[in-house]
């Protein structure tokens, strides 16, 4: 009893690495899908299409108002009920994309709205269509403002992926729990787990700092 079992960390690290790869795969896919959903929904919420605007608002309301874990359970257990059979892995991707898409929609909306109305008026005055104004004037300017909150959202997404352990996806957290069940060393392995997440998220932060610097 007592003392820290360092050896178990060496034993667990490679197993956890395979889990970390799954975490990264799921996060990357969910980030791509979530960003696409978020950009489309963010643009829709600024459009003149009232029904779609309300749909987006309802979506954001739901995502913000329910725990990510509940959303994961809903996707995982509800999709089969409505006849969509997907693996736990893809269920996890869908759930996280659904979750982050709602938040990213708000980030995109706020980013575009923060651009001075005079920019849009000037674009209109030289005959730009709404699409041209968005593409050539508003998006390039909002990109820099969107990057920091978007980074936060990606970080949140990576951390939320640990919730997927609840639907038996062998991502980083789940794979750690499996080894803990064998070795009964929760402290050491959860500490190592924390380090894994810290490393992943530190790398993400660096990437985003670089992108931000490039944009300004």
């Amino acid at each position, binding site marked *: 009893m007592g003392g820290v079992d360092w050896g178990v960390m060496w034993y667990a690290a490679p197993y956890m690495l395979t889990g970390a790869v799954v975490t990264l795969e799921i996060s990357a896919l969910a980030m791509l899908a979530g960003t696409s959903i978020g950009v489309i929904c963010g643009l829709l919420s600024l459009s003149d299409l009232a029904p779609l605007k309300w749909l987006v608002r309802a979506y954001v309301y739901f995502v913000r108002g329910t725990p990510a874990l509940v959303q994961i359970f809903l996707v995982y257990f509800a999709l089969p009920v409505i006849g969509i059979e997907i693996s736990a892995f893809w269920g996890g991707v869908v759930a996280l994309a659904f979750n982050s898409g709602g938040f990213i929609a708000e980030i995109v909306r706020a980013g575009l709205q923060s651009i001075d109305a005079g920019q849009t008026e*000037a674009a209109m005055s*030289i005959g730009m269509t709404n699409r041209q104004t968005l593409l050539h004037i508003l998006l390039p*300017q909002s990109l820099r403002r969107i990057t920091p909150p978007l980074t936060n959202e990606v970080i949140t997404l990576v951390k939320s992926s640990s919730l997927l352990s609840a639907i038996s996806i062998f991502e980083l957290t789940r794979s750690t729990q499996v080894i803990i069940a064998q070795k009964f060393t929760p402290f050491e392995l959860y500490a190592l787990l924390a380090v894994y997440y810290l490393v992943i998220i530190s790398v993400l932060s660096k990437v985003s700092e670089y992108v931000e610097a490039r944009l300004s």
Partner: protein
Amino acid sequence: MTTAEPLLRIHGLSKLYGEVPAVDRVDLEVAQGEVVMIIGPSGAGKSTMLRCINRIEQPSEGEIVVAGVNMAGEMQGGRFVADGPVATARKRRKIGMVFQRFNLFAHLTALDNVAIGPYRVLGAPLAEARETARELLERVRLADHTAKKPSQLSGGQQQRVAIARALAMRPVLMLFDEPTSALDPELVGEVLEVIRSLARDGMTMLVVTHEMQFAREVGTRVIFMDMGRFLEQGAPGALFANPQHDRTREFLRRISHRPETEAARQPR
């Protein structure tokens, strides 16, 4: 009355905000080459009227025809069909606008602010669009500042880039919405000089301004606007020397006193 079709014809234009008319049943005809100065107290509806002409603001009522083109829609098979957003954008191309706050595209250099219209809207090759932009910036005497971002330019320089940006679309009509009101006094002259040179070249212009001296010298006509209506208009000499309407007199009196009160505050 002239028989030639005016370049700009406004008939019965109103813009209501709720129940309140900002512009109230305005009629106006502007011939090719005219420089119409619009003066009046703030809140008179001057800017709103300008913004209705290129439909940055949707008019509530009335008809606006620019160079024979109805800005609201087209007759199709004996029936009036309102323009969609893309058709409206297309019609805006030939109306240049200069804003009080410049509104240069913050992410682009002076050169690309001017080039983006020909390039993205008119579909010119980028090199050609930039060449046009360079010539226009030279014309507003900014040849040395093409690579600067708006934030690196003075207000007067920004406004001259904005004028070049509008000219790059080869407009038939230019709208100026208080182009010098946001400028430091010492920068007003360089912008007015550019507008003056456009007038010499025969550009048709509507200029909302508080620069009375400039309005008198450059305008071919001056309109006094108040409470959304044209109270009085005429040749600049006549209107400034002998205003017919009490409100015009009152306004001109207050305006002419302004520099003196400012000077009175100066001595320390």
